[in-house]
């Protein structure tokens, strides 16, 4: 795994207009890095900022518009420094920062607070991002990790900041994000005295939403517990570790290494060994798969985390197995692969064998669209989860990549023409049905003069995947209940990590924009599976309800020049207002002020704003937004005005039901 050396890649942007090609992205990314290293740039303005300044537009007084703070470039140009015992005693915070650096922590997202730890992590050269709220930055860290496949950290201050993070800690936990949650937490000396310390017991709060947690109360063990946290997040099934630091730990000074206990090298405190399938288990699996006529392999989160996507495709192709991706990211099973079953829901019901590989969160029987009582093989890195929720006929404890490699070597070549045809036929029928839904929605849009969410999502699909843009280029995600139901149908993952399932499992409403800004930071740096598309824009489809949670983080995106196109479906309400059908007095609870101009708020925050009511306006707005993202690293919020009644199926029927799983719309598993 690699990590960027410093923060310069977020400090500047190319000013040269270029067409949207993968080659140009690579070239631009290289030039960006070189330029940033060479200069300590003053704050630059985007075209949007310049225009706002000169015109006094968007509520800004003439001559006053948001400016990127000069500290962004200035700090990026400064060398990273690592404390050691040679010059002066080290603090606990410095010891912890060195540990994070040695562990190649790829990114650190915080809202200021937990100052000693946060500042030392930045100083030691870990790419660090400061933003507006702890919750937003926690979601950003989660998104960064989901897109980059790297370990990440977020931080908040004491009780209030930590509490603000909680929703997004849970979202990260249920996505098995390898993340450190770091929070300062009062002093042990004043614990239980009700002194104004913003103190609370943090660990009980995360006890059900973490893999590992520890309040570090012995200063000499700060390194040891930090190492334990990294061991926990990186090994087995990845997960989240929460450390809270009383002042006595991070502020303690140590004269030399002898004062710190168990300060081992990472090669001693953890191991990279992985379990492999036994010969007998492998032979049984090969026999079951070979005998099956219609096998389906569900490639879960573990396939992505272990970067086993290439061997997955090789193995599936060799034996013509249907493959379906699952987990908090999509694309490790490409949506355009001939064996992909993610839009062949009906065909999945024909499976006569299901092989789960790396499915960290198992559905219950009946949650997945497979035949009743279908024989099942499950491959998982930890024995304790085999048989959980879904009965298994063969359980194999194995690393996902090692299993797929062994399986690929052991399986004979096999053609399954009838099965492949059935998958293709089901996909064709499902696609035709989705297109019919769009046609119905188009009628609704035309009759109301407002954008229906189905129309919106199909337009985004056509823009990203059927025009001049490389379909694999743009990183996407979606949130919101109403528009999300349509976005899942039309956003695509053609390569690993291309689509982030922001809702995954926990279903948190609102963090999607922040999460995708974090994902955007990963693609800007070209980390992990994003490497080939370094510098490409990120697009998120979300709803107006979600805007209440993380809209302010557009300031963070603009500050760091992370180009995010945020398409907001604005229906003036919480889409679930139909739940008040039988209690009409409650309907007002779901309403916002109508016609709120989120695009104008974006402009005030230094991003671009677009406002659309028709398909054609959206098409043009997307083109302008993408151009600005490519050429100025500018973010854009596209406010798409919809109608609150579009979520009422009695008035506007024909929009389909809940999303079947596994498949393109899967959010729960």
């Amino acid at each position, binding site marked *: 795994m690699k990590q960027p050396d410093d923060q310069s890649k977020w400090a500047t942007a190319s000013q040269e207009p270029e067409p949207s090609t993968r080659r140009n992205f690579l070239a631009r990314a290289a030039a960006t890095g070189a330029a940033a290293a060479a200069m300590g740039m003053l704050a630059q303005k985007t075209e949007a900022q310049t225009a706002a300044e000169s015109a006094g537009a968007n509520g800004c007084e003439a001559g006053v518009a948001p400016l990127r703070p000069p500290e962004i470039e200035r700090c990026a140009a400064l060398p990273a420094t690592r404390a050691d015992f040679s010059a002066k005693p080290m603090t606990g915070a410095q010891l912890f920062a060195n540990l994070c650096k040695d562990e190649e922590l790829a990114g650190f997202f915080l809202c200021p607070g937990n100052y000693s730890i946060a500042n030392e992590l930045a100083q030691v050269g870990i790419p660090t991002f400061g933003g507006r709220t702890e919750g937003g930055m926690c979601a950003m860290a989660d998104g960064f990790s989901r897109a980059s496949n790297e370990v990440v950290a977020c931080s908040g201050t004491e009780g209030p900041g930590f509490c603000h993070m909680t929703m997004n800690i849970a979202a990260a936990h249920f996505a098995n994000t390898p993340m450190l949650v770091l929070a300062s937490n009062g002093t042990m000396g004043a614990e239980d005295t009700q002194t104004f310390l913003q103190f609370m017991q943090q660990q009980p709060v995360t006890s059900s939403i973490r893999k590992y947690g520890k309040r570090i109360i012995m200063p000499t063990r700060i390194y040891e517990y930090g190492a334990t946290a990294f061991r926990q997040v990186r090994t087995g099934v990845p997960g989240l570790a929460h450390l809270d630091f009383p002042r006595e730990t991070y502020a303690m000074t140590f004269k030399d290494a002898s004062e710190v206990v168990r300060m081992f090298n990472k090669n001693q405190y953890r191991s990279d060994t992985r379990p492999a399938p036994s010969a007998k288990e492998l032979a049984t699996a090969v026999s079951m798969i070979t005998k099956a*006529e*219609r096998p389906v392999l569900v490639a879960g989160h573990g396939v992505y985390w272990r970067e086993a996507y290439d061997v997955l495709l090789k193995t599936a192709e060799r034996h013509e197995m249907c493959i379906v991706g699952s987990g908090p990211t999509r694309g490790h099973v490409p949506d355009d692969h001939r064996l992909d079953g993610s839009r062949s*829901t*009906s065909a999945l*019901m*024909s499976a*006569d064998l299901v092989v789960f590989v790396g499915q960290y969160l198992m559905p219950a*029987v*009946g*949650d997945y*669209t497979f*035949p*009743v*009582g279908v024989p099942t093989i499950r491959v998982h890195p930890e024995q304790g989860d085999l048989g959980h929720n*879904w*009965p298994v006929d063969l359980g194999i404890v194995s690393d996902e990549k090692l299993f797929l490699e062994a399986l690929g070597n052991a399986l004979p070549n096999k053609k399954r023409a009838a099965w492949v045809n*059935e998958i293709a036929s089901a996909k064709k029928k*499902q696609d035709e*049905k989705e297109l019919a839904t769009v046609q119905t929605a188009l009628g609704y849009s035309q009759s109301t003069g407002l954008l229906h969410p189905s129309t919106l999502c199909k337009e985004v699909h056509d823009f990203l995947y059927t025009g001049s843009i490389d379909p694999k280029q743009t990183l996407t995600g979606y949130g919101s*209940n109403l528009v999300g139901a349509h976005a899942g149908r039309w956003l695509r993952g053609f390569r690993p990590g291309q689509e982030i399932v922001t809702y995954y499992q926990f*279903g948190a409403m609102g963090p999607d924009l922040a999460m995708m800004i974090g994902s955007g930071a990963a693609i800007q740096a070209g980390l992990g599976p994003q490497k080939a598309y370094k510098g490409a824009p990120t697009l998120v489809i979300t709803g107006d309800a979600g805007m209440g949670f993380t809209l302010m983080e557009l300031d963070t995106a603009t500050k760091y020049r992370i180009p995010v196109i945020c398409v907001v479906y604005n229906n003036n309400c919480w889409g*679930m207002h*139909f*739940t008040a059908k039988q209690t009409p007095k409650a309907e007002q609870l779901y309403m916002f002020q109508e016609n709120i101009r989120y695009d104008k708020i974006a402009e005030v925050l230094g991003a671009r704003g677009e406002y659309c009511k028709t398909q054609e306006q959206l098409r043009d707005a997307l083109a302008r937004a993408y151009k600005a993202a490519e050429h100025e690293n500018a973010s854009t919020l596209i406010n798409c005005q919809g109608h609150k009644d579009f979520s009422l*199926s*009695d008035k506007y*029927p*024909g*929009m*389909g*039901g*809940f*999303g*079947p799983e596994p498949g393109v719309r899967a*959010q*729960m598993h």
Partner: protein
Amino acid sequence: MNSHKGGAVSHAAAETRRGPRRRQPQAADWSNAPAQVLTRYAERGVFRSFTAFPQSGSRAAFCMRWHKDRYFDFIVDGTLKTIRVPVVLPNVAPRSAMHRDYRQFLEGFQGGELPVHRSIDQRKCFLKCMNRLGSLSIVVEVRDGDYAYATEKLLAVIHETYLLFLQLGGYADYMVQHLGANPDWGK
């Protein structure tokens, strides 16, 4: 496998107790085969719970807790050579669009639209859908005495009803209102 069901007495149990006495058919397969199939699925964890009621005359009854945490009664009649599930979908108005859609969905199993491995061989059994007081029920007429086949097919049809018909057919509101699905996620 007998697991405690709890709650109200099921239709199956009531019908078994109250049903008219009929001459028991010669072949015992009419009760054994469904029992074996259902027990096998129960042991594989398909159902959350499963109860086989004591046989009564030519009737055998079973009850399982299954999709959407609902109880499904299976009533096998050895004289009529049928297997009946009285409530597959509740609260469906007779002659409603949903009723029509569901009939069409069921016809797909017998009309050659599905692959052979999912379709129903009409020489072996025949599927009928009825609406009784707003509940959609399915009756399978067993034509060749292969009760195991009929049971397997009936289970598959109900399974596909909940995973394909409802999920893909635009019945989100129905699932929320009548099956207790969460309006946000459908579960």
